[in-house]
């Protein structure tokens, strides 16, 4: 079965969840979410900085789905304002969707095919966030970064055991309407 048929089956069976676009927006890209990420994005939060934080993240994800232009960093540790950055080690093919507003959060993901992202887990960047049950990622060589990457690889293996994620250095293989930071 092709990877496209695979993820479509997983969505149809509600094992993975497709982030719906805001009605009226085009659906150019697909963000597939694990149940964990979907729960993080939809759980009730009281009004306040945490809810605002999540709103910004959701708007960013909707922008990805709607085909907005994306700035991407291919080199680990060098992303500044890029929306998506590749993580170390390159051969792991794990990326993070970045939201810079403080407190920052990162969604660990892989590319299923061009313009289709698999969002595995969401983690706080520097300080704890009440709606995420993980320690902050902290320093670039921290255990938490490694845990996030391993969790992404593990989740991938559960859903796509017979397929590899998109890899390589050709940005066009990953995303339409994107440029390198």
């Amino acid at each position, binding site marked *: 079965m092709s990877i496209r048929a695979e993820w479509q089956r997983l969505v149809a069976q509600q094992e993975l969840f497709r982030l*719906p676009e*805001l*009605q*009226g*927006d*085009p*659906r*150019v890209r697909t963000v597939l979410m694990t149940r964990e990420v979907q729960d993080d994005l*939809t759980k009730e*939060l009281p*009004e306040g900085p945490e*809810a*605002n934080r*999540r*709103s*910004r993240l*959701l*708007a*960013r994800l*909707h*922008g990805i789905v709607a*085909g*907005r*232009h994306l*700035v991407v960093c291919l080199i680990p540790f060098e992303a*500044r*304002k*890029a*929306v998506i950055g590749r993580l170390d080690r390159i051969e792991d093919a794990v990326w993070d969707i970045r939201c810079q507003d403080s407190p920052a959060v990162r969604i660990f993901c892989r590319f299923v095919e061009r313009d289709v992202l698999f969002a595995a887990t969401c983690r706080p960047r520097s300080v704890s966030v009440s709606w995420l049950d993980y320690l902050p990622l902290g320093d670039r060589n921290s255990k938490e970064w490694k845990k996030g990457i391993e969790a992404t690889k593990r989740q991938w293996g559960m859903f796509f055991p017979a397929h590899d994620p998109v890899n390589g250095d050709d940005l066009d293989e990953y995303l339409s309407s994107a*440029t390198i*930071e």
Partner: protein
Amino acid sequence: MSTFQAQLLNEIAAGHDGPPIPESKRVYFQERYRERLFDFIITRFNIQKQFGLTKAKLARRIGRSPETITRWLSGPSNLESDSVSELLLGINAEEMDMDAHSVLDRAPANVYRLSERRLESAGTTSFSHRVAR
């Protein structure tokens, strides 16, 4: 309309005498505006790159440092209206056309016409080419 969308818009849809729009929903639309504005500007810049525009040229034209231009074109941010005006002017001698659309009752988009709409709205000729004619 999806449940998610209905929940997002319920206070907004309640009208002028409705309840206050929660801050988190206002923030959502703020971020959405930043994303759309950046997309609008960077699309224009990328088209003009085909006609020789560089960040350095743009910086010189609008009296900004190259670092500022790099920062503005690196991702969505809270650009000031003056900065937006300068960017559009410097990129392709344009100014913003003002229009607004309801966030309620939006018809589903036809994704296959997206690329056409982007090219139409961004313009496919450069300022210098129009001057040459």
